[in-house]
């Protein structure tokens, strides 16, 4: 494993799409593209589902959710983070008390600030958009909390998986 490849729990600066509203732009087209406009344009230009469409982006520290063994895959899933100092005192307090739902406090200093992971801020990032330097690292305990909150936030139905795993563990236990 190459040491500088992003790993689960690391906090690194990354180039992240920033799409607050109607974000897409295309050369020669004045208005921002929405899906209808883009699909109409693609249809007009022939059956080619690939165009160079520009999207605003910012650099931000992100929390890496997983690392890949192979650099050739190149795609990582990460969460946006938010500095606590950029939040209101009430929200800061809620984050510190672990009562802020989709904002999970990242333990330890991360990128020089107290920081929370934004559970709904999931981004798919190409490896080249992620900086080499690790500026923070979330503990295993925090990553477990992040995993729980992602399951809640995305309303993942894990019932069958948990049931199957419990049964597998129980069936491996010696009844004696």
């Amino acid at each position: 494993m190459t040491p500088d490849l992003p790993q689960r729990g690391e906090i690194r600066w990354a180039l992240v799409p920033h799409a607050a509203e109607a974000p897409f732009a295309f050369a020669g087209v004045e208005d921002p593209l929405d899906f209808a406009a883009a699909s109409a344009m693609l249809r007009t230009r022939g059956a080619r589902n690939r165009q160079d469409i520009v999207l605003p982006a910012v650099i931000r520290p992100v929390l890496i959710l997983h690392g890949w063994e192979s650099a050739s895959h190149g795609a990582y899933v990460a969460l946006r983070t938010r500095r606590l100092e950029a939040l209101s005192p009430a929200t800061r307090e809620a984050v510190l008390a672990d009562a802020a739902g989709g904002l999970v406090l990242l333990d330890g200093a991360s990128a020089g600030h107290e920081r929370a992971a934004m559970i709904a801020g999931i981004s798919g990032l190409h490896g080249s958009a992620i900086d080499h330097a690790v500026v923070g690292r979330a503990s295993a305990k925090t990553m477990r909390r992040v995993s729980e909150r992602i399951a809640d936030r995305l309303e993942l139905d894990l019932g069958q998986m948990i049931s199957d795993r419990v049964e597998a563990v129980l069936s491996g236990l010696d009844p004696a």
Partner: protein
Amino acid sequence: MDTTHCTADQVRIPRVAEGEAVIVTRHGKEVAAIIAIEDFRLLESLKAAIAAVSRPPRYQPSAAEIEAWETDDDEFPTEEEWETIGKRL
């Protein structure tokens, strides 16, 4: 668990106390277990508990989460941070 009820005079079963089980074999293979009703209830409760904790609750974003989304953070690296990040290997 789907259950079928019948009376004790309809089937012949051995007596089992709570915490005990009688394993029934057919052609040398274990096919069923007879357990006390208390243990059966416990088993059902465990299955219901697993199902309950596994079911995703309807998600309601907290006020804190909404605030974090709606306020834009213009975070930008400091001069000191630029010393660490953005270096080509």
